[in-house]
Every structure is written in structure tokens, then in C-alpha cells.
């Protein structure tokens, strides 16, 4: 009696849930799918559905130095940014988790502030500061700005990883003859590596995707791809931008898959 009743509602629930989830997924990813389709359009402007298919916009992207130049600029920014942010964020997280001092939570708050403070405020601040420091419109300036914006993500993921591992492991390593550095390298680092890699991926994706701050501190000479897209939309819109967006999408999807693999790798040893 009870079983059949709950079974009846169960079926309704299951279909209802599937429908809701399906709608949500379509709602979220529909624009992405449309962009990908548009990037293969044969029409010279953004219309949907496209009248035919072609690869001309990908040709335009890799044939036009303005486009591939800015793509290259983005990569020149994101690689050093990711390395710097990962190193700084990891060191900060490790230092904070292994020491106890007054105002520790304030420091942690300050490290996290770039993702709490509205980006536009950071952007205006950097605009002012970089002009007087001579960093305005330079690759170094963009790398510095992106590093500030991405350190909090590394800090957060690595702090999370550190909070889960048993601190006594380092004590145990010490009694077994490991110097603090060896203990970090052989014990702590492998255990927090998934957190570090997650942070690194965050840094890469966020740097690649960053628009607001870059807009404020870049010039046409040093212009990352997002800023180039933005100025393209405001001028003559052609489907090259859809091709660029598709490449960005592909890039982020790879990052997601990588993240998933990292999580899987970590799970095997930690819980069972």
C-alpha cells in the first residue's frame, strides 16, 4: 500500500526532475551551442539559423594578425599569470595554515579581496596606479593584474586541500628523518597537488576570460583576445567573434575535463 503510493509519486517525481534538469541545462548551454553553430556560418554577419556552413571565420581568425595576435597576447599573459598565481597562492595558503598569529583572518580576507571587491573598482584602481608606475599598456602590467585576480582562487583551493590533510603527517615525517623541505615535497605537496592543480586551472581560465580589468589597462598594441572581441562587437560585427568564442569554449571545456580527472585521481587514496 505504502510502497505503491510512494512508487506512484516516485515516477512523477523522476519525470518531473528530469524535465526540470533538462530545461535548466538547455537554458544554460543554448547560447553556447548557438555560438558554436554560428562560428561555422557561411553568412557574413551574425544570423541564426545560418544559411549554410563554412570554415571561413576560422580562416579569418588565424589569417588576421589582429585576431591571432591578440590570442597570442592572451596566452603570453595567462602562462606567466598561472605560474605566478599558483606559486604565490600555494605559498600563502601553506604559510597561513601552518602559523598562528594575530590578524590572520584579516590577512586571509585581504588575499581573498580581489574576488569580493567588484572588479570595476579593482580595474579603476589599477588604471590609476599602473599609469603612474609605467605598467599601463604593458604585458607585465596585464600579468601583474591577472595574477592579483587569480591568486585568491589558488589560495582558496590550496587552503581547502591543506585543511583536509592531517598535520601530524608532517610531525611523523620529521621523526622519520625528513627535513621540513623534504617533508613538504614528499608528504604535503603530493597530498595537496589536486588542490594546486585546481587552482592553476582556475587561474588559467580566469586569466583567459578576463575582460574588465584588461580593458582598463590595455592598449591596442597589447590587447588580449577578450578586449579584442569586445571592440569587435562594438565595430563591424562579423562571425569571427563566434569562432573565437568557440575556441574559448573548447578551452574551458578542456579545463573542466582536466579538473574532473584531477578529482578522480585524488579520491582513490583519500577516502575509501
Amino acid at each position, binding site marked *: 500500500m505504502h510502497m505503491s503510493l510512494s512508487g506512484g509519486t516516485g515516477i512523477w517525481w523522476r519525470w518531473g526532475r528530469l524535465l526540470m534538469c533538462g530545461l535548466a541545462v538547455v537554458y544554460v548551454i543554448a547560447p553556447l551551442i548557438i555560438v558554436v553553430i554560428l562560428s561555422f556560418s557561411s553568412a557574413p554577419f551574425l544570423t541564426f539559423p545560418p544559411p549554410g556552413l563554412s570554415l571561413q571565420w576560422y580562416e579569418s581568425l588565424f589569417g588576421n594578425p589582429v585576431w591571432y595576435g591578440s590570442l597570442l597576447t592572451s596566452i603570453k599573459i595567462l602562462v606567466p599569470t598561472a605560474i605566478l598565481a599558483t606559486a604565490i597562492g600555494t605559498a600563502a595558503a601553506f604559510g597561513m595554515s601552518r602559523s598562528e598569529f594575530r590578524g590572520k583572518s584579516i590577512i586571509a580576507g585581504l588575499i581573498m579581496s580581489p574576488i569580493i571587491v567588484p572588479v570595476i573598482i579593482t580595474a579603476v584602481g589599477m588604471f590609476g596606479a599602473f599609469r603612474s608606475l609605467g605598467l599601463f599598456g604593458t604585458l607585465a602590467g596585464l600579468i601583474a593584474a591577472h595574477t592579483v585576480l587569480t591568486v585568491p582562487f589558488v589560495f582558496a583551493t590550496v587552503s581547502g586541500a591543506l585543511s583536509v590533510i592531517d598535520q601530524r603527517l608532517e610531525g*611523523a615525517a*620529521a621523526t622519520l628523518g625528513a627535513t621540513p623541505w623534504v617533508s613538504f615535497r614528499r608528504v604535503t605537496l603530493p597530498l595537496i597537488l589536486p588542490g594546486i592543480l585546481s587552482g592553476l586551472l582556475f587561474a588559467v581560465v580566469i586569466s583567459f576570460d578576463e575582460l574588465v580589468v584588461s580593458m582598463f589597462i590595455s592598449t591596442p598594441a597589447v590587447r588580449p583576445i577578450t578586449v579584442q572581441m569586445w571592440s569587435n562587437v562594438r565595430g563591424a560585427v562579423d562571425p569571427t567573434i563566434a569562432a573565437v568564442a568557440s575556441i574559448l569554449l573548447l578551452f574551458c571545456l578542456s579545463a573542466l575535463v582536466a579538473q574532473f580527472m584531477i578529482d578522480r585521481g585524488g579520491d582513490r587514496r583519500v577516502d575509501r
Partner: protein
Amino acid sequence: MKNTTDGCKKPTLSHSSPLVLKDIRKTYGEIVAVDRVNLELREGEFLTFLGPSGSGKTTTLAMVAGLQNPSSGSIYLNGEPLDPLPPYRRNIGMVFQHYALFPHMTVAGNVAFPLEMRKLPRSEVRKRVDEALELVGLPEMAKRFPAELSGGQQQRVALARAIVFKPPLLLMDEPLGALDRKLREQMQLEITRLHRELKTSILYVTHDQEEALVMSDRIAVFNKGLIEQIGSAHELYEKPMTKFVAGFLGDSNFFGATVREVRGDCCLLDSQNGPLRASNTSRLKAGDKAVVAVRPERISFFANGHNGVAHNTLKGRVTDIIYLGQSSKYVLKMPDGTEIRALQQAQTEGGHKIALGDEVSVMWHETQANALAEKQRD
């Protein structure tokens, strides 16, 4: 310091002389974790730190390992001061309460770790890892990860990892605390066997008095950051020097009294319950305030009437009888309200059975009672 000559004469270099703790003190701001600990470990000895939680035993162990620094005092291993050495230069094995195995390394990887730190050649590492796993009875688990083992197996791995580099001293911090009773008893015997085979000196921390009695050569009873008494299980049980030891290790009845006269090893005391006689364990003088401690199993009943002795004889009413199988525990209430616990072996009294509410007389022999100084620390 001392006893490099007495005891077993093993010429092995690492076993040449004992661990010495001199006036070790550890404070955290206002809080005194370890007040003043003095200790000399003997050659190849199994010494247990026994005490309630917060008594300073684990902190003392951590200071020997170098995981904590004493606020004052010194530690010597083989006559050399340990204090300037960081933990990774001390060459002391340690087994932690929750194993502290490296989760990302296999069992073999964990056990090999201290050998790799010592830069031993690969073949030697493999040989020693195999030996150590053999010794703790886990030779077939080498390729497993710690998470794939049971608690008891993990503790064996932790043990193997701590002994594989043949440290002259092994520290164990409540290593069996997380195991269930049956496994714990089995591991106690195994650790005792390992101690016999390896001849390493062991400092063992526990709050379980039974564990301490089973395993130790000597026991140091910790209370409030101090060692109350150190001695063999037998000494601590028969001749406790303080009220805390008499109450913590086994059970004791306590009677407040004042010393009237000292006669050799014995002293005569006056108490609310009449005259008492006891061993003068605390070296008391006439007029001193004292506590007389008597073990429940040393108290015997005698049929109503007179036994001809005026001292150590009390009358009371039976208020509780607890049947324990081999023996029974009786709770008696004295006229002045104090309670006495007495333990009697089954079928000792021929036919005569003590029932609830009976008026009974009890007594004990003066050598079975200890007169202790009434000093109470806070």
C-alpha cells in the same frame, strides 16, 4: 649520568646509555602542561607514562621526539643533549595514536620512507622493508595503500615504519587507543614480543592502567604535569607513595588520620574510625597528617565478636553487594558515614554468607595498609 654499567650489558653502540630528562618543564602562557619531570630510562627498558588525559604525558613524549620544545630543562640521549637537535636529526622512532601513515604511499613506501631519508641503497631498503613487514606480520600487504587496511593493520604498518631504521629509542603515544578491546589485547602482546626481540628502549604513553600493567617494566604515573611515582607495577601497587597513585592504579580505601607514633617501618595512627596501623610508606613523623590507603581485596571479614586486636578493625553495615563471578564486592557504611569497599574471593567463608543490611566487622593486616602524606596539590 648513571647505570651505564648495571643492567644488561649490550655492547651495541646505540644502546650504550639511557634517555635522561632533567627538570623538563613546558608552559603555554599561563598554563603549565609539564611542571617538572625528571626521569632516567634504563637500558632496553619498557617504560610507560600512565596518567589521566591532560597530565602531561603526551607533551613529555612530544618533547623527547622534538615535536615540541621544552620551556626549560634538558633531555639527553646516550649522554648527548638532544635539545639542539631538530626532530629529523634525533633518530628516535615514534608511533602515533592515529597511525599518521602517509595516505599517498603504499605500505612498502611508508616503511621505506625513513630508510630513504637515510639514503640507504635500494637493495638494502627493500631487504629491511621486507624484514620489518615480516616482523609485524604483514608481508603480503606491501603494495596496498593505508586506506585499504584495517585499523589494526595500519597500526602494524606504523610500528614497522618506526622500527625499520632501528632507532635506539621508540616512542609510542597511545598507539592502541583507536582499536577495539580484543585487538588491543592482541597488539599488547605483540608489542611486548617485539620489545623482547628488538631490545629497544620504549617509552609508551597510555591512560589505560591495565595496558600499563601488562606491558611495562616500569610505570611512571603522571598527574598534573608531574611524575607522582615511578616504579614497577608491583611497587606501585603494593607501595604507592601518594594518594593519587593509590587511587589511580587499582582501587583504594582512604582513611584520614594523624600519626601518633612511628615504630620502625610501621606507624600508629588515630582516626575517626579508631586506632590504625600501617606501613610508614611516606616516612611520616609523629603529629603528621596522613591518609591510610587500603586495597579492597586486602580487607577481610570476621564473624561478629572480637578478634582480640584493637586497631585496623572497623564495624559497618553492608549497603551493597556486587557479584563479580570470581569475587564479590561489598560496600560497607561506617557509623561516621564513610564508605569502605571490600573484595572477597568466592566461597571463602565456610557456609557463612554475608547479606545486605548485615552488621559486619572487617580488618586488615598493618603491612597491607600504607600511610601516605596528606599532601594535596592543585
